[in-house]
């Protein structure tokens, strides 16, 4: 693979590129699902191709091909140069890439069990058992389970001398039970909604998730929601479970700190950001106990944003994003780092596949757990009055990442430090900085989980990326609840 990748670099150099990188990606996926006790889908997919990114005439060009013959790679490289020359027609400032020592390295996701070595029978057997367990609960009208594995092997070379061979694994699984009666459809999911939990791990993740053990409870909760009271409207102290807090971080911290958004590069589709450059190290993003990092390093844990090197060849790093409540950092790239006075990229450039341009993506954007021991049950028992919400149902936020509204699958009233009645259709809304400044407690490391969001969309053409979000249950004071149903 290195030979054909270097062939692309040679062609790019001969054609006048001042910089070039070539990235060959071999990707494999297995996706299995069940529905109502039957196999719903069983699919394998493989993909192989090369993307060539060049700077020529002070402008970017990119071309990708699925044909790795010399002739096809040469044609794609020439096309990338042609594209760059077209880009140069509409340019202003010279491109500036921060210096990066070219890496020569190998890296593989730490894993115990290569998921592709597990048998399909074993995978389906587990899913069908979960499905059957949920269907034992009277009132359940639909059951769905799913499991997927990905293996991505990348060869990256650059005209600066980088040569990186990287193999990443990710594994995910989850399920949901639905209950329909009267005028209502309710749903409960486990371990998380929209596919479950995903991490950069092998099959050992599946064994850790206690999937079968929770199936009956989850199905019973779906049915119970049909008879639960509607979540009230008003202002409440709100406790969020870790998975919902992970998505809250994703939407109201992870996206606004993307420097390409801040600089207007995503204005047409994903949007911009309220975090304009003058706010760095000045804005009080959250309360004193809010500490958030962007950490793609292996030592952060097996998040979907964990890797050895990003798709510009920069080794994974940890950037403090919010430090004791103060806004302290953005997600940056070699092209954008200089705009915030940095001399090195924050290593966040990732692409969905060989045929997409790398762009700034969240790595693992995680909130640091509390340093004093605090379990979720202790957090609830220390709350005299409020609401506890669990598992995301829907999420929406404006294009500067200010006004958000989330709804969860289930809520419970908290009275006198105890979980009281179950509540259906719970939702909450707010303004990003007001919300994070209202956080007054977060559970400790024992309750902290590195959640995976496998479906983050950004860019044109749109790219889907997996991101990680370490989070523990946390409490927020005086949050607006239920406005989703106001006036309905």
């Amino acid at each position, binding site marked *: 693979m290195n030979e054909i990748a270097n062939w692309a670099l040679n062609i790019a150099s001969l054609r006048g590129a001042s910089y070039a990188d070539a990235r060959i990606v071999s990707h494999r996926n297995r996706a299995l699902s069940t529905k109502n006790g039957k196999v*719903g889908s069983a699919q*394998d997919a493989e993909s192989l191709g090369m993307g060539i990114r060049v700077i020529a005439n002070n402008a970017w060009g990119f071309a990708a091909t699925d044909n790795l013959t010399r002739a096809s790679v040469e044609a794609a490289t020439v096309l990338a140069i042609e594209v760059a020359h077209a880009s140069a027609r509409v340019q202003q400032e010279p491109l500036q890439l921060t210096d990066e020592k070219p890496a020569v390295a190998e890296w593989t996701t730490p894993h115990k069990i290569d998921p592709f070595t597990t048998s399909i029978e074993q995978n389906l057997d587990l899913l069908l058992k979960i499905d059957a367990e949920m269907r034992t609960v009277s009132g359940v009208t639909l059951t769905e389970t799913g499991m997927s594995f990905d293996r991505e092997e990348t060869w990256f070379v650059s005209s600066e001398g980088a040569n990186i061979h990287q193999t990443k694994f990710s594994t995910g699984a989850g399920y949901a039970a639905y209950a329909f009666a009267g005028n209502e*459809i309710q749903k409960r999911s486990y371990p998380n909604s929209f596919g479950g939990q995903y991490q950069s791990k092998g099959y050992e993740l599946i064994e850790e998730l206690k999937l079968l053990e929770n199936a009956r409870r989850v199905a019973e909760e779906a049915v119970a929601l049909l008879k639960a009271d509607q979540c009230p409207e008003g202002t409440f102290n709100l406790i969020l479970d870790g998975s919902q807090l992970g998505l809250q971080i994703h939407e109201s911290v992870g996206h606004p700190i993307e420097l390409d958004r801040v600089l207007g590069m995503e204005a047409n589709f994903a*949007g911009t950001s309220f975090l304009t450059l003058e706010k760095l190290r000045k804005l009080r993003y959250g309360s004193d106990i809010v500490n958030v990092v962007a950490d793609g390093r292996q030592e952060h844990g097996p998040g979907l944003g964990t890797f050895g090197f990003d798709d510009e060849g920069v080794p994974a790093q940890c950037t403090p994003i919010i430090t004791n409540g103060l806004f302290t950092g953005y997600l940056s790239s070699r092209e954008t780092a200089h705009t915030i006075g940095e001399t090195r990229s924050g290593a966040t450039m990732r692409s969905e596949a060989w045929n997409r341009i790398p762009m700034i993506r969240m790595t693992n954007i995680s909130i640091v757990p509390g340093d004093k021991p605090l379990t979720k049950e202790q957090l609830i028992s220390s709350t005299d009055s409020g609401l506890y919400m669990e598992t995301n149902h*829907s999420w929406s936020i404006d294009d500067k990442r200010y*006004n958000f509204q989330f709804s969860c699958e289930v809520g419970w009233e908290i009275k006198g430090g105890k979980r009281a009645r179950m509540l259906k259709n719970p939702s909450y809304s707010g303004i990003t900085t007001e919300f994070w400044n209202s956080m007054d407690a977060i559970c400790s490391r024992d309750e902290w989980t590195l959640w995976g969001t496998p479906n983050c969309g950004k860019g044109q*053409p749109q790219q889907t990326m997996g991101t990680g979000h370490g989070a523990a249950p946390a409490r927020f004071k005086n949050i607006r609840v239920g406005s*989703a149903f106001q*006036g309905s």
Partner: protein
Amino acid sequence: MLTQSQAADIFNKLRKSSSSGELEVTFSGGRSSLTRFANNVIHQNMTEENTSVSVRILKDGRTARATTNVLDDESLQRAVTSAENLAKVQEADPDLLPMPSNGGPSTTIPSRHFANTANLTPQDRASGVEKIVGTAKKHNLTTAGIFASAESYEGIFNSAGLHDWHMQTLAEISITMIGGDASGWQKFNSPDALHLDPLALAETAARKAVDSANPLDLAPGKYTVILEPAAVLDIVGFMFWDFGGLSVLDQRSFLNDRVGKKLFGDNINIWDDASHPLQTGIPFDGEGMRRQPVQLVENGVVRQLVHARSTAEKLRKSEFADKVGPVHASGHGFQLPNEMGEMPINIVFAAPANPQTVDQMIASTERGVLVTRLWYIREVEPYDKMMTGMTRDGTFLVENGKIQRGIRNFRFNESLLHMLSNVEAMSTPVRSTGEESFDMVVPAMKVRDFNFTETTKF
């Protein structure tokens, strides 16, 4: 690009090499390019070519799929073996149907392949971007957006004898104009690049940005809204998953127990029609069945759903057989195997009896809000089809029949049942494209009592 003849050769080769059972091979791919600009410069610019070959095995009531983009014999054979391995370990499913030998009643669509679109070069797209940037500079604005073009194919062959092939092109421009605290947006696409007018789109987006400067902080509440076509399609698109027969069979649809009932206003008539001249896309479904036109909603009453072959079979045998309108395979199924069944994806709103232009809607509005586009729409409640989202890139206060000024963006929480029961006026439907849903032929709509629940900071 792969030709139909080359695809047929691959299919015949795989058919000979696969073990007993039925075989389906689908092909998709092509060339696509996208020139992306922001801050008045081109900052990303890409082109790609890819070919995907997807193999489905069906044997003894078991089915599975494997896909590859590597076309050498070894890789293609590996795909067949993978599909066989995935299929053979399953329990037999008595509901699985044999592969169809033909695509059903023939349909005719207009040509959707235009050489001028296929031949657009990086320089052509850059030239279009230059015009857009020039317009931005003329109005002291900055602009961001895309100019994209693509030539693609979809094909299907199966061992029962069915085969079909479709080629199309698409050119697309999307423009955001930004000026201080205001922005404006326009987007359009067509199979024929000649129908794209970068300057006209840029001028409209620029006018919206200029006119919405210094936005007013208006209190949330129920307002009469005038939704431009892109705003309409982005919100109504979320209900069409529920028009698949399997979603009712699964009891996850807002149409559970509601087919045949009046859910929307008398003036709402909706078709799914892949052959409509303003539509784009493929004339056959994931099994190769020809997409048939289906009237989904007639005078506000949900009349029919769409059905994949297997859904039609299951529904006919189910307790819902006489509760979901006419049941027949309509050519709307996804590739098998899948859990979602089918969906109408060529939505066409019928023209109203007395169409009004957006300007006429504004002129007849005492107090209301004009919305250019909606953003980040998500479902809050599935049976009332309660949706939330934000306005974006050009939201205006209308008073006394005139646009008065820009306003800060609202969050809405609105039921689609409520919204489509309160449509006071519609324009002539046009081909429209947004970001939250798929392209449709939709009108602009004037809707009373649209529920805005919060205002954001800009």
